[in-house]
């Protein structure tokens, strides 16, 4: 892979390299290892780690606490946007004010990380307390907005992870990353650029692969395909060839065959009831209390059948079907 070490800057002064590299370091530093990203949890983690006082406030809360109506706050405080980061130098406090009515939820997720991007990219300071048009020149405003946009895109839908999965379409990005259609379209374009021009591969893209190791891991799942979250992302391993006549196989004291009598598979877990490669029952006589099927168990990535219940299994990446805390 050719490494592109040149830092790309646009005519507006947008530092793409700085924004993407900051995003990738952010992913590693705050252990963002699953998609969709839990943006609100990341803000908490970030605040604790950096000792920054950051609070997320909704327009609804602000309206209740100030007695001002929603529309005034939306039009005149966050300028009709979905959110705004405000820095209070006197209190050394950052507030991310959100329009909680923005839908779908993916839009809120994007706004939170976009505003956090302004903080992490150092856009806010004692004199620049918010990124709003009137406070900055058009060039400065667009540069900072674009950099926060790049940051949010890379944190919420890391280009190389999606490339590795093979998720290139906006619809798939929407499903996997939990983003709005507009944000997913924008990420689709970024990934297509990478596919069309491999010179854009950067070694920093690879840095985040270990962080996402569990998310990317292949496993098999014993379930009906319609129970899976992303059904377009499943395959099946072909079953192993069975012998026409059973092999001469030693039977263990537990009553289980030492290896599969029909395909010869020797990779048998201690609690296996069936051969994972050909689905043959591993007991000479039918044991009692065999589990019902399908049993939802996770199996090795090379399995064709469930070792527990003998059902056909589907191969997939763990992260595409499960939430992080489900495993």
């Amino acid at each position: 892979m050719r490494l592109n070490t040149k830092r790309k800057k646009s005519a507006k002064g947008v530092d793409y390299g700085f924004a993407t590299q900051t995003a990738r370091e952010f992913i590693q530093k705050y252990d963002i290892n699953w998609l969709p990203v839990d943006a609100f949890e990341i803000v908490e983690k970030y605040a604790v780690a950096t000792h920054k006082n950051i609070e997320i406030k909704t327009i609804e809360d602000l309206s209740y606490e100030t007695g001002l109506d929603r529309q005034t706050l939306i039009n005149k405080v966050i300028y009709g946007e979905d959110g705004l980061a405000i820095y209070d130098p006197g209190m050394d406090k950052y507030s991310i004010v959100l329009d909680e009515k923005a839908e779908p939820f993916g839009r809120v997720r994007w706004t939170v990380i976009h505003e956090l991007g302004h903080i992490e990219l150092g856009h806010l300071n004692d004199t620049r307390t918010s990124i709003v048009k009137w406070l900055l020149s058009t060039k400065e405003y667009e540069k900072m907005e674009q950099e926060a946009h790049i940051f949010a895109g890379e944190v919420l839908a890391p280009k190389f992870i999606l490339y590795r999965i093979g998720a290139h379409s906006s619809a798939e990005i929407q499903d996997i990353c939990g983003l709005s259609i507009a944000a997913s379209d924008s990420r689709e374009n970024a990934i297509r650029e990478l596919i069309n021009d491999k010179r854009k591969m950067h070694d920093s893209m690879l840095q985040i692969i270990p962080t996402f190791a569990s998310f990317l891991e292949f496993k098999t799942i014993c379930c009906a395909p319609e129970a899976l979250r992303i059904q377009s992302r499943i395959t099946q391993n072909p079953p192993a060839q069975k012998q026409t006549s059973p092999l001469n196989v030693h039977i263990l004291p537990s009553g289980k065959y030492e290896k599969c009598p029909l395909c010869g598979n020797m990779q048998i877990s201690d609690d296996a009831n069936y051969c994972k490669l050909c689905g043959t029952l591993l007991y000479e006589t039918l044991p009692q209390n065999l589990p019902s099927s399908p049993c939802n168990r996770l199996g090795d990535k090379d399995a064709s059948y469930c070792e527990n219940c003998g059902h056909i299994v589907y191969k997939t990446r763990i992260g595409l079907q499960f939430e992080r805390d489900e495993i």
Partner: protein
Amino acid sequence: MGKKLGTYIKSLRKEQKIPARVLSERTGISKSFIDYVENGLREPSAESLAKIAAALDVSLDTLINIQVEEQLDKAATAFEVSNADLENVSLDLRAAGRNRDNKSNVSEEALKKVKLALQGSSNKQAVLDIIQNADLRAIFRASDNLSDDDIAKIRKVMESLYPDAFKH
């Protein structure tokens, strides 16, 4: 909105390894609404809260108590903002409420209230006590009509009750 409530619901669900989509199936509440609730962006109705409590095997009282506690926190901030002496609040929220000509497009009073609300209540417990205690509330309301001597006496009593609030 209930950030603490949402965080508590999310932590319970994660502890029990229940994915949000499964909680949605069990409660009949859309996955999207659960996302909003868990992140403090929407307030669940009592009916939705009861369904969530049942699905996560937690008492409804526990969830309602968190909800009430949180609403009181917000009431404390609202109370403090509405009773603040705005003349002494500096208007350094430069970005908010201005147009390109650096002219305010919203009243100074409104901006100062926003600033105070973003800062949060400075002495939440004392304010909560006033909100919750009818006697203290009466003293607070009556203070406008009291003489300076009376106020000084009340201040001494309050200082002994809330030493932290009077630290300089």
